[in-house]
């Protein structure tokens, strides 16, 4: 059941350059699945901001989101503190259908703010006994977060655009070099990255998670559509039918 709730911020920490990790308490935390997002309202802003779920703590009844300052809204979000309340719609969108998949080895490919939902996914897969290889791209060294957490789950490779850490270049360079074995890949990040990864791994089964500017975030306004490969005159809504899609299902812009 999707609802709107006032949630209290349990902790609010800067974890990398311009990047913040926020833990929110919610009775619905346990319902949040990897790939889903929450839709956060901001005072004096007409539109909510979609942010992916980066983890759930069942015992504490909390979930985590990680965001990077991009524009005015995320800047405002960065000024909140533990104890403040956030108006949040949750759970939003679809999730990685891992229960229906027969995965033994998973390849995780993330870029920038596409990394957070993949951490929740990777952790959940690991708990199911799946072997994980993670390849993560960041712009620069100071933007990297959660490297150790990924490392605790499986082999982890980092690329930075400027070479200030790990491999210089893109996640696709690492995929080519490392040539990991996997039966499913899961990717989230900027559209150009998703396109490159989907092309590179076209022979494999995989899921990707998309971003688009949203109006409602719940499926009523048709703001966030993505055209389908089978018929480009048809589309799906990223907020409701996504953000998770089969890698070969949609046409990336």
């Amino acid at each position, binding site marked *: 059941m999707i609802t709107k709730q006032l949630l209290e911020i349990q902790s609010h920490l800067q974890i990398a350059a311009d990047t913040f990790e926020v833990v929110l308490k919610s009775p619905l935390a346990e319902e949040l699945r990897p790939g889903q997002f929450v839709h956060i309202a901001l005072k004096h802003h007409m539109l909510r901001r979609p942010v992916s779920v980066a983890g759930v703590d069942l015992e504490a009844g909390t979930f985590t989101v990680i965001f990077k300052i991009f524009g005015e809204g995320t800047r405002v979000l960065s000024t909140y503190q533990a104890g403040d309340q956030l108006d949040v719609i949750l759970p939003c969108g679809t999730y990685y259908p891992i229960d229906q998949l027969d995965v033994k080895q998973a390849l995780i490919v993330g870029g920038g703010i596409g990394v957070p939902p993949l951490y929740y996914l990777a952790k959940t897969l690991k708990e199911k006994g799946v072997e994980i290889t993670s390849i993560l791209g960041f712009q620069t060294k100071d933007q990297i977060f959660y490297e150790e957490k990924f490392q605790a789950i499986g082999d982890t490779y980092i690329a930075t655009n400027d070479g200030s850490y790990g491999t210089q270049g893109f996640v696709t360079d690492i995929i080519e070099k490392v040539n990991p074995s996997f039966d499913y890949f899961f990717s989230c990040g900027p559209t150009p990255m998703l396109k490159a990864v989907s092309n590179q791994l076209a022979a494999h089964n995989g899921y990707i998670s998309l971003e688009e500017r949203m109006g409602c975030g719940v499926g*009523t306004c048709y703001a966030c559509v993505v*055209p389908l490969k089978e018929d480009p*005159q048809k589309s799906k809504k990223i907020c409701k039918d996504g953000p998770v899609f089969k890698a070969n299902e949609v046409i990336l812009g």
Partner: protein
Amino acid sequence: MSLTTNLPGLSLKNPVMPASGCFGFGKEYSQFYDLSKLGAIIVKAATGEARYGNPTPRVAETASGMLNAIGLQNPGVKSIVDEELPFLRSFDTPVIANVAGSTVEEYVKVTKELNRSEDIAAIELNISCPNVKEGGVQFGTDPELAKEVTAQVKEASDYPVYVKLSPNVSNIVEMAKTVAEAGADGLSMINTLTGMQINLKQRKPIIANKTGGLSGPAIKPIAIRMIYEVRQAVDISIIGMGGIMTADDVLEFLLAGANAVAVGTANFQNPMACPEIIDALPAVLEKYGFSSVEEAIGKGHIG
């Protein structure tokens, strides 16, 4: 405190309804509350065939408002009649279908197809969508075209026809008079104002369609002015909209002369906007000395 208000074909238990395009066909928001609470529901525009709409991005945020250029994406009138509208049967609230098109023929075709449906109580004739290349806004800015399409749709429709006016005109009163004379049972106003936002990094408009329709509190003063002026010139019913966020706003629209109101953009910020506004309305009416919704309609015209 009586919240009822009566418009042609619409006996509403309260004056608040979601605006077209901001509520889909009701399913999603029915997860948040019982839609029977609503005065009415205006559903997303229907065109003759399914439409993909514009490329994305389709929305942008502005100061106290937003831009949208959805481009009338919808599954086509047939699918709407057969697959979307029946869902709304189970709620105790009248449904208004929104009719769009690129040609007079398409408008008429959609209207006739809607006659088939028993799930609606009225149609809203959208001659004001600024986000489609053909048709749309021209019908809303050219009095001759507006007259023609209104007359033909009125002729074709089994249901009362509310014509939705575009604010992108030099003379809103002239447009209102024209469609009233052409047979409109009511007016719906206002649609969005055409606007643009430029992405400084990308050096191009944020919205892929370049321009989009401006909605939200930013445009409320324009909506109030237009309704106030039109109220003094024509005497058919008006569904007022444009930037409504609170019950105070609803009263302002009633005072300006609206017989009922629609809430658009506010639903995105707060999915509970409509029921919260309805709950707050009695106290607001009382605070300002009114004992019913009907008493307040048009009462901002003294002095």
